[in-house]
């Protein structure tokens, strides 16, 4: 499977997740953002406001596609209608790449519309790798697969998530979108060391990092994407840049969406870590 063709000029630095609340501001102010990430599931309809604005924004910015609906780890057959719509969107908008998650979201026709964790077993490695391969063959390019935040682990798991991820990436020959916030959230919830996780990931396959905010529920951390990035996640991000190099990074904010200027402040803080790193080299 060939890697997607990226123009490095189009894909560097810190991009921002595109949300409808910011369409007008982006078009009016043309902020200095290297690329936007469009949530493909928001553009699966036939027409209307979201597609119209995506077209306008695409005319000025490169975009990546990020989805939550493929249920890569599920056992229901891959939804071919969804895949067909994704391909149509891809030929219309020419994104840099497409990503989805290492998780399952539906079973026997019922959907959770939430990212549910997989068990980490040999069978599951084989199963999900085959499905990622199926999607990559259908799209004709490698996809990026992202780690999810989780709140439970299964008794049947016989390896760590990072080991599982590495095996899947190898078998499916896919690329990785490494969500730093998700690593931190899961590390706290399950009591593993986030740095060990970072180091165990196959770094040659990592093409993008995600940053977002969680919510502290007292007994556990909830991945809400509704707050600014927390201090320990910034710390982990800095370590990730040291470990992986300057990987394009995307800032996500999905609930309690603030003014666009707040996202720009977060973006600029993320870029500072790049500068800091460059200064040390």
């Amino acid at each position: 499977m060939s890697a997607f063709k990226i123009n490095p000029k189009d894909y560097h630095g810190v991009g921002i997740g595109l949300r409808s609340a910011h369409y007008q501001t982006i078009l009016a102010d043309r902020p200095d953002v290297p690329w936007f990430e469009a949530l493909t599931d928001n553009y699966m309809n036939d027409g209307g406001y979201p597609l119209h604005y995506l077209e306008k924004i695409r005319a000025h910015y490169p975009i990546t596609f990020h989805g939550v609906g493929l249920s890569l780890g599920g056992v229901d057959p891959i939804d071919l209608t969804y895949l067909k719509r994704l391909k149509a969107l891809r030929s219309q908008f020419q994104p840099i790449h497409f990503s989805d998650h290492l998780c399952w979201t539906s079973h026997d026709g019922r959907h959770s519309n939430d990212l549910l964790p997989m068990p980490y077993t040999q069978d599951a490695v084989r199963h999900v790798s085959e499905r990622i391969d199926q999607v990559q063959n259908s799209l004709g390019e490698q996809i990026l697969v992202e780690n999810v935040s989780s709140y439970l682990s299964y008794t049947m798991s016989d390896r760590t998530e990072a080991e599982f991820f590495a095996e899947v990436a190898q078998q499916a020959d896919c690329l990785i979108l490494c969500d730093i916030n998700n690593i931190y959230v899961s590390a706290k919830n399950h009591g593993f060391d986030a740095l060990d996780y970072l180091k165990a990931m196959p770094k040659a396959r990592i093409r993008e990092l995600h940053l977002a905010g969680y919510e502290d529920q007292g007994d556990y951390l909830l991945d809400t994407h509704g707050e600014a990035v927390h201090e320990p996640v910034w710390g982990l991000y800095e370590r990730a840049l040291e470990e992986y190099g300057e990987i394009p990074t995307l800032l996500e904010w999905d609930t309690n969406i603030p003014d666009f200027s707040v996202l720009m402040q977060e973006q600029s803080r993320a870029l500072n870590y790049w500068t800091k790193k460059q200064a040390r080299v």
Partner: protein
Amino acid sequence: MSELSKLYATMMEAIYGETSLAASYIVPGKVLSAAAQLGIYQGSVKGGLVQALGDLFPASKGLLGEQFFDAMASRYVAINPSQSASLDHYGETFPLFMQRFEPLAELPYMPDLASLEWTWHLAFHAASTNAISPDVLTGVPLDQADQLQCILVEPIYLHRSDYPLLELRALGLMTESEVDAVDIASGGGCYVVFRDGLNTQMSQVSPPLYALLEELKKPLSFGTICAQWLSKHPDLELNVYTAELIKRSWIADFRAINN
């Protein structure tokens, strides 16, 4: 059934239901029990769908209040799991559920309002067609109406209700500050949900215009539709109503039949 299938089936059952069968698959945490960990997913899946219904039916939520609406939506979610990867498809049967929901018996206008909101949502995301241009319209051989089909623009949805839906919607959304109460007894009307460019809109129309729109949704010749409409409205001028359809930009085309 594979181990993975068994696990997913049990998990999905637990997420939508209240069962704790899935707990045996889950490693108990130091702080949270297996059931409590599962509860986080139950909460986020159901909460996400309740939230989606609130976003899709904002005026209904506004009228009923968050607490009542969310409780009703939770009942709906429990018996209507999501069947699509996209939340845009969730809630089609919610108006019907509201019609049968006993605590709403005293508020009979709510299901109609919810139906209107659902079509607003459909119209918002639909592909749209343009109205016929004056140049094309001038060239339409209306003397051959039996050979022509009149095509309405898309999207266009029709609602007839015994209740004043536009006022109820405005009150629910609190977009028009002058609407602070609605007189349900003031009666209903005929409503059209359509798009003007990117803007989804709703209009109240006269019953004869509504009847004409209803006919035009049928795959009949324009001549037949006109004749049927005139037989039901012998005292009215058809030209007045077709002119209004054109003025409102609701006619997309006249096409020759069998072409």
